[in-house]
Structures are given as structure tokens and as C-alpha cells.
């Protein structure tokens, strides 16, 4: 297994593949007079494309556009503010993934709330939060559940564990997002011209290859499910160009070691048991119908939104252009705040602070000056 893993990031193989991608892209440019444009819909791909240097190496050959794949970044500012306000309550322990802790709210961040003395903890798994609830039965333990289909099953496993152990001081604040509704919304808006999607490897492990058929049937849009190492990503980009050149509009599973046609039935069944579709607000995109999941009514006792409701004001507008960045309309360098007023230490928007944010990827991996 180690050997296979080693091969997927093999530098010589990557270099050879890179040359092949460039050659094929040249064919495309010759045929259509412009670079092929693909969107990656997964924050981990955004990071990997920047970190490995693929995005930079292909700058002249393939237009790689980062999409709405970073769960923290696409979360509406009002929801972020609500979660921060929630954390200011007493007699409670707020548990969160690390990415949320420095995300700027309208007033301040969770980090600030923590510094002021509130009990805010970074955990690596929601199951740790259930353990904390078990350990502190006198405190209300609330987990901030943010994520796409990759993360949602893990959130649900924590709910199941709390339910089975009869833990009553644990609840979750859901702000989850689904991939299909946002892809549909992007395609229907017609704002970005795309030739295909680099589809998210991790999300696809859960939802399966077949779930993307609407892209082909309804939007005539090809997609390739990609892994995360340089060889895997380059292979998937190659296949995307090839699909377009051959006019073969299809979905290819290029991450077959992990992704099946049907996805993970156990995870999907668990999600179905606890959760139902809800309308979710996306940062500067607005509410998209049935674009998220939240707890079903019968699990109100696990639902932090029901148990600890908070009222927040409409957030004020800032100059941050995260909203345009997550829709693939501009690249971070086009934002006047990028790397000046907005840096990882002093982020103005979530795209700069999240480990999956496009601005963070460009700041960390693509700056020369």
C-alpha cells in the first residue's frame, strides 16, 4: 500500500504526465482558440493544485478555476455570526473543527471568544465532543457541524453515539452543504464558462459516481472524479481534456481505489435516518432550495438550533470578495485586500483562513513576491 501511495506522488511520473497534459491542452487550444477551463469543486483539490505546483505549471495551458468547495468559506456570514454568538453563552463547551476557530465573524472570531475565557475547544473528530459531554455531564456540549457530504457521515456517527449512550447534554449546530445543488446553481447562473468539473474524491466516496449523471444528462457537462496526489490530479485533468476533445460528454471515475458507483450505502442510510434536506444560505449566493441537511424533527433534543436559539443581525458588508471567489468569478489576486489587508494572520474573509480556502491556497503556495 505504501508503495502505491508513493507512486501517486512520484516526481518523475508527475513531470512526464505534466508534459502529456500540456501537449493535449495544446491540441485543445488549437481546436478552440482558448485554454480548456475546468473547475475543482473540492477545497482539498484547491489546496493540492496549489501546493504541488500543478496550477502554476499549467497556467498557460489549462484554466483551473476554484469552486465552492471549502465548507467554511461557503457558509453564510449570518450563520458564522450565529455560531460565534452561540459560543458566548455560559455553562457550555463549544467544540469545533480547527478551521472555524479563526474565521472572522462580524464582531469577532471564536478565537477571541476563547481568549476572553469561554470554553471553546478544537477537536479532531465530533466523537471527541461526545466524549467531552460524557466527561462533563453538568455542561452543555455543542458541536459546530460544518461540512459537505465528506464530513456529514462523521457528524451523524457522533449523533448516533450520543443517542445510544443516552447522553442528553450533547447537541449539534448543523450548517452542512450538499454538492449537487450548488453545482446546479452555478451551471444555471451561467456566470462561469466551464468545460468540465474536477469532481471531489472524498465527497464521491460517500455519494458515488452515479450521483453525477445529471451533469451529463441535463447540462452536457463532463466530469472526472479525482484523487489528491499530483499523479492522480494530472491524470484526471488529462482525461477531462480528452473527453472534451473527443466530444465524449461523460463522468469518469478516476479515483477507483476509493470511489464506487453507488457510494457508501451505510453512510447514506445513516444520514437518511437522522437528517432531512433543508434550504441553506450560501455566502453571497443566497438561499438555495434543499442545499443542506439538518436534523429531523424527532431529534430536536440533539439540535442546538432548537435548544439554544440565537438572534443575529444582518451582517455588514465588507470589501472582502470571498463571494465572487467561491463562485469562480475572480481569482484571489483580483481582490484589493489579498495579501495586503487580508492575510492568514489577519483574515478579512473565511477564504483566507480556512485550510481549504482559495485565498489561503494562493497566499501560501502561489505567491512569488
Amino acid at each position: 500500500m505504501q508503495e502505491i501511495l508513493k507512486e501517486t506522488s512520484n516526481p518523475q511520473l508527475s513531470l512526464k504526465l505534466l508534459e502529456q497534459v500540456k501537449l493535449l491542452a495544446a491540441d485543445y487550444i488549437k481546436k478552440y482558440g482558448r485554454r480548456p477551463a475546468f473547475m475543482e469543486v473540492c477545497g482539498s483539490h484547491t489546496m493540492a493544485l496549489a501546493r504541488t505546483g500543478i496550477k502554476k505549471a499549467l497556467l498557460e495551458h489549462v484554466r483551473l478555476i476554484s469552486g465552492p468547495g471549502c465548507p467554511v468559506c461557503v457558509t453564510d456570514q449570518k450563520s458564522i455570526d450565529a455560531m460565534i454568538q452561540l459560543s458566548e453563552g455560559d455553562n457550555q463547551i463549544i467544540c469545533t473543527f480547527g478551521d472555524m476557530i479563526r474565521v472572522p465573524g462580524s464582531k469577532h472570531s471564536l478565537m477571541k471568544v476563547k481568549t476572553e475565557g469561554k470554553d471553546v475547544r478544537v477537536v479532531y473528530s465530533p466523537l471527541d465532543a461526545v466524549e467531552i459531554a460524557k466527561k462533563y455531564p453538568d455542561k452543555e456540549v455543542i458541536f459546530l457541524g460544518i461540512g459537505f457530504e465528506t464530513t456529514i457521515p462523521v457528524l451523524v456517527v457522533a449523533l448516533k453515539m450520543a443517542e445510544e449512550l443516552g447522553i442528553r447534554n450533547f447537541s449539534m449546530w448543523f450548517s452542512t452543504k450538499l454538492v449537487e445543488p450548488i453545482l446546479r446553481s452555478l451551471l444555471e447562473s451561467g456566470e462561469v464558462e466551464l468545460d468540465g468539473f474536477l469532481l471531489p474524491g472524498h465527497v464521491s466516496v460517500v455519494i458515488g459516481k452515479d450521483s453525477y449523471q445529471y451533469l451529463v444528462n441535463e447540462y452536457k457537462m463532463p466530469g472526472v472524479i479525482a484523487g489528491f496526489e499530483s499523479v492522480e490530479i494530472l491524470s484526471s485533468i488529462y482525461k477531462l481534456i480528452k473527453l472534451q476533445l473527443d466530444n465524449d460528454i461523460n463522468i469518469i471515475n478516476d479515483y477507483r481505489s476509493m470511489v464506487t458507483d453507488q457510494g457508501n450505502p451505510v453512510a447514506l442510510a445513516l444520514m437518511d435516518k437522522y437528517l432531512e434536506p433543508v434550504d441553506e444560505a450560501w455566502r453571497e449566493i443566497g438561499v438555495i432550495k434543499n442545499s443542506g441537511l439538518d436534523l429531523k424533527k424527532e431529534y430536536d433534543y440533539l439540535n442546538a438550533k432548537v435548544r439554544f436559539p440565537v438572534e443575529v443581525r444582518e451582517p455588514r458588508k465588507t470589501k472582502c470578495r470571498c463571494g465572487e471567489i467561491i463562485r469562480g468569478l475572480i481569482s484571489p489576486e483580483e481582490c484589493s485586500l489579498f495579501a495586503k489587508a487580508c492575510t492568514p494572520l489577519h483574515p478579512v474573509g473565511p477564504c483566507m483562513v480556512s485550510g481549504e480556502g482559495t485565498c489561503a491556497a494562493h497566499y501560501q503556495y502561489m505567491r512569488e513576491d
Partner: protein
Amino acid sequence: MNDKISLAHGDGGELAHRLIQDVFVKAFGHNEQAKFDSALLVLHSNRIAVTTDSFTINPLFYPGGDIGKLAIAGTVNDLAVSGATPKYLTAGFIIEEGFSMSDLKKIVDSMAGEAKKAGVSIVTGDTKVVERGNADGIFINTTGIGLIDDEMSLDPNKMQVGDSIIIGGTIGDHGVAILSARGELGIQTNVKSDCSILNHMIDDVLRTVKSVRIMRDPTRGGLATTLVEICDDFNVTMELYETALPIRQEVEGVCDLLGYEAFYLANEGKVIFIVGQEEEEKVLSILRQHEIGKEASVIGKVVGKDKGRLYLKTPLGTTRRLDRLSGILLPRIC
């Protein structure tokens, strides 16, 4: 003797005296000097290096070391990379009430052993005990004094384009060992901390290699942060080759899982040399004669003398600018 530290061990009275005699003097062996309020030292040098460091590591014992070993190696290494020969150390302890006496002895013995290996004497110290809850077990401060030879030729201003960047071995081992020993991440590895004294190995290099411009030990913030500081301080631009960085497979695995980069993870037994290219082979062969320098490698070059930037060359041939580690290392969420 009680098997736990009590507040009385820090009150300057009988129990405090016994603690000093039975634990510290016994291990550090400075009976004569302990009779004065200060250690009286004779130094034969025109130039003296002084450094101080406090150690608050959690957990106190971890694969490859413990807080005692670290407290000696950390300060000895700071002296050694400054071109000084480490001679004397002081040791200050802040101990939490209720701390286990046998753990304290283990830590003190570990300090004594490491000091002996380094050839330094611990000449004076101090102990304070604080109420339960006011410290995390034990904190140690060590201050070190080293002598600088008149012939010592380190001069960072001589750094020039073409100079080689050499690292003494694999990077990120300490960071991963500690992360894994904390048990918070649900990861288990066999990686041991590289915590080690470096002064003898450095001494061997300095005795025969004349073109060493500067040395640093890349501890917190890792290799990248340390090199950014050198670039910034002396206005040189450097390029690191990603494919040349020595990284253990397990460390790489943890980085992949958690979204870390090994060059931002802490080391406690590594030294960076910036050295004239003509002597890079000589440095490598001296380092590789030492057990702790077996995996020494050339990892980059000085490429400019203007902007003060650090770049990383990726396997695909693109470059990327590296900054200091910013904020806490946070794992990604999906």
C-alpha cells in the same frame, strides 16, 4: 522522603534542603559550589555566549526524550550553533504541588546524563513549588554559558550566491512524536523525537571546515521558519528543493493526513549549515560519521543577495514562496 512534591519543598526550609541535597546535588554533583549563593566560575576567553530557554513541553515524557533531556539539549544546541563551546548551565525548576518525586528524579537524572554527554556542568539552580493547578507538572528553565574561540570564523555576512544549505538529518520528527504522544489526534506512530545534543558534531565540522557562514537549529516553526529568519535578517534569497528534503515516511504520512508540511514541524536535534559550495561534500562526510547525522543532506542553495526571500522548488519545477509558520497548526476539516 515523601513521594510527592509538597509546597514545603519550595519554602527554603528543611524539606527544600533535602530536595536539593538528595535530588539535585546528587545528580548534578556540585556539592562545593552549592555552598554559595552564586556559582563562581573562571572563564578563559575573550568572548562568551549566553543563552536562556524555558521548557514547558506536554507530555513530559515522550518517545525519544523527556523534558529534562530537552532542557539540556535545547540550551546546549543554542550555544553550539552560535559557534560557542558549551561549558556551564543553570537550571531553574517550577514544580506543581503534588508532582511525583520519582518522575522528578527521572527528569533530573536525564538532565545529568545529557549534560555529561555534552560535557557541560550544571553549576547552579533554583526550585519553586506552586499550588496545584498553577503549573502543568513541571517547567524548567536553563541558561547556558559557552566560550567562543578567537579563531571562530562564522560570519553570516559572507553568505554568497551558490552557498549550500545543509540539514543534519530528517525533519519534523520531534513535532510528529509529540503530536502522537499527546494522543489527541487519534494517530499512533513509531516516530521518535530527534531530541539530541549537537555540540560534538558541530565541533567536528567547525574544526575542519572554514566556510561555514551560519548555523541554526530549527526548533519551533521548523526548517522553513528558521530559514525565513536567516533570509530576512541577512537579506539573502534561498531556494529549497522539495525533493531533496529528508523526511521519514511516517512523518510524511502524518503530514498527508493532517494537512501539515514537514518543514514547519519542530525539530530538537537538527542543525542547518550554510556553507561554501566547495566544502559541502566535506561537511556531509563529517556529519554522516555521527549517528545523528547519518541522513544529512544538501537541501538548497543561496540564490540571491537582495530580496531576503525563501523559495521552495516543487517537483514539477514551479517555485513557491515560504513564509514563517503562521498561527497554530490546524488540521483541515474534510
